[in-house]
């Protein structure tokens, strides 16, 4: 059913159609609207046969999810930013135990300095936790990926994170096609757990494993993700059959056929990138872009196939691997092993800094001339950085950095004036 609705509400409706049995919720911006929507649906009875539990922390949210999933219930939760870090130990644990929990991340920056706006620092911090990570480009895809996520999680017995850009998608009103219950039921069979706590067949789950078996257990977690590389495209094809539209998959190419320059990114920024690609194509540039949907597992072969014939690859990263550069670039470079081309890492949009068409346009022009540094910070205010470095050099007791920068910048209102 077509609807003009908020991204979070669209996700909540999609989750409800997936018939979750246990939902744990702890509020953190910008994830709140999703669990609020689900809580209401459980209260009204619209979402029947579901326990909605308001917990006291994100750590408890994931822990309740672990218990519920281990007891055989289809389980969902959502978080963001600091919340994801607070539940980190349980995030790893859920994957280690092979529990098919689905979790939405409303992507948001991590403090300090505290910041509620969008970037990918949060989900990137958990990229090696053993969860599958899918990044949504649009609200429609955010909705659709959740339906696929339960299939994927339950077929592999592996948890799945669906990463949805905070505010840009979660709070944006957009037209979406919310699937009908019958469609979802036809696509997503009831959950049959691989392992479950049951007095009829008592098992011990979560035993201590020593050096004699730990490597094999970890390898099998890796193997599970490698299997997901084959399963994700199959689920996409099946999804197309049931719902009549493509969503998800490992990655999507946009005008890359003859491209010399290919831009790679995760999530909603791909929309802006594609517009800039169109502009530059109209100006005669041979440029295209690749939107990576599956970041874990990372589609090395598909990326190599998509990027291998380009002269240069520009990776737009909404997170910073401090002291190195970017996270996405790691995978992209690995996929291009042995191929000689120029690779650029661009850190952009941290803490919600707008990534504008004009900035990207200039950036890609510079890339075409191979005039980019290895690592570039898009729209970094170099004067501000220079000012702060000079100020810090003046006195040992220079005080807190972020606050000094803010004093220099002044109020937002003063900038508008």
């Amino acid at each position, binding site marked *: 059913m077509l609807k003009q609705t908020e991204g979070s509400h669209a996700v909540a409706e999609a989750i409800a159609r997936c018939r979750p*049995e*246990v939902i*744990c919720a702890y509020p953190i911006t910008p994830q709140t609207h999703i669990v609020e929507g689900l809580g209401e649906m459980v209260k009204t009875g619209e979402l029947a*046969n*579901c*326990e909605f*539990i*308001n*917990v*006291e*922390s994100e*750590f*408890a949210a994931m*822990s*309740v*999810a*672990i*218990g*519920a*999933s*281990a*007891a*055989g*219930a289809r*389980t969902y939760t959502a978080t963001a930013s600091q919340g994801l870090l607070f539940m980190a*130990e*349980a995030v790893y*644990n859920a994957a280690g*135990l092979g529990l098919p929990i689905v979790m939405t991340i409303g992507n948001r920056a991590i403090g300090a300095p505290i910041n509620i706006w969008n970037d990918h620092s949060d989900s990137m911090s958990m990229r090696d936790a053993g969860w599958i990570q899918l990044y949504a480009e649009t609200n429609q895809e955010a909705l659709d990926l959740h339906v696929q996520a339960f299939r994927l999680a339950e077929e592999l017995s592996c948890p799945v994170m669906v990463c949805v850009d905070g505010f840009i998608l979660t709070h944006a009103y957009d037209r979406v096609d919310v699937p009908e219950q019958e469609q979802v039921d036809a696509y997503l069979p009831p959950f049959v757990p691989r392992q479950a*706590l*049951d*007095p009829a*067949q*008592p*098992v*011990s*789950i*979560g*035993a*201590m*494993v*020593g050096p004699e*078996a730990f490597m094999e257990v970890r390898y099998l977690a890796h193997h599970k993700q490698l299997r997901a590389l084959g399963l994700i495209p199959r689920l996409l094809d099946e999804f197309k059959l049931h719902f009549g539209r493509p969503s998800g998959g490992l990655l999507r190419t946009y005008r890359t056929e003859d491209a010399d320059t290919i831009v790679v990114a995760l999530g909603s920024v791909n929309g802006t990138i594609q517009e800039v690609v169109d502009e530059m194509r109209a100006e005669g540039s041979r440029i295209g872009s690749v939107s990576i949907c599956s970041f874990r597992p990372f589609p090395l072969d598909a990326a190599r196939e998509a990027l291998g014939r380009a002269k240069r690859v520009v990776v737009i990263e909404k997170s910073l691997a401090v002291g190195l550069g970017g996270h996405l670039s790691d995978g992209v470079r690995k996929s291009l092993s042995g191929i000689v081309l120029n690779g650029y890492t661009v850190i952009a949009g941290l803490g919600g800094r707008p990534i504008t068409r004009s900035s990207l346009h200039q950036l890609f022009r510079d890339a075409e001339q191979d005039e980019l540094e290895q690592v570039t910070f898009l729209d970094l205010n170099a004067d501000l950085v220079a000012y702060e470095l000079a100020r810090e050099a003046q006195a040992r007791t220079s005080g807190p950095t972020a606050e000094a920068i803010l004093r220099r910048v002044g109020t937002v209102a003063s900038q508008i004036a």
Partner: protein
Amino acid sequence: MEMQPIKFYQTATFTVGNRLLGEHERSVQANMRRTNSLNSGHRACQGCGEALGARYAIDAAMRASSSQLAAVNATGCLEVFSTPYPETSWQIPWIHSLFGNAAAVASGVAAAMRVKGREEVRVIAQGGDGGTTDIGFGCLSGMFERNDDVLYICYDNEAYMNTGVQRSSATPPAARTATTAAVGPAPGNVFGTGKNVPLIAMAHGIPYVATASVANLRDLEFKVTKAMPIRGSRYIHIHVPCPLGWGSAPADTIKVARLAVESGLFPLFEAEHGEFVNSTKIRRKVPVDEYLCLQKRFAHLFAKPVDSTRIALIQAIADHNVKRFELLG
């Protein structure tokens, strides 16, 4: 013939003769068809109070639930000594997730059972004092506040024994641990305000709170049996001596536990819906010295010169308990 003939040893006046009781009143452990939920062969130390407490508690819970039981275990001694895979001592569905989340995982299991229409399956969460009173405290309080349908059992041996006897918030004043060394002008643990988790559990108003001791296993079984059919959050805090950590003789585990009760340092009581209901009376009150002097963790108190000032402070704690929990008949 389900009931095993019990040999009856009388020790002073403290042993209740099991064979003198009617069959329905006898210990779960006297029944040859007991479930052995935590069966033999595990790797607990000699004289482990926790292994004893867990065995009695879980078998009693199994009987009370007609074997419809699932357990969630916090990281700790009980988890480590019971499941060095491929060996497991658990004959029940059992899950270990993390150190600090047993209560929350149990809430999740209970929610799943409810939504799946399997409410006959009862859920227990269990952990040591570290996993309960320190790192798992947030999840525990959350579980209480929501009144989730879980019985939480804390096996309190008064320090982080699994990691090598470090202080927890349940460690008593003056006790020597690896992080409260028996050196300096005030050797051992500080005299803080303490953290009485049974009283904190009561403050949540949950349906049932009790303390128990491996010195009084019938009382322990009784309380578990009483807690099991109640719906909502229940909390039982069991005092379990640790010979290794306390520096007591393995053969003295019961004796040490009994002296903790009889001195007033570990009061046994029950509370319902936040209200104190009753306490198990002390038959012969003993001075705290009798309890303390059996344990090397308090040895510095008795070195020459005897630290009578701080022993008196500990005695004052015991005396306060006796009054507060009405421990004398």
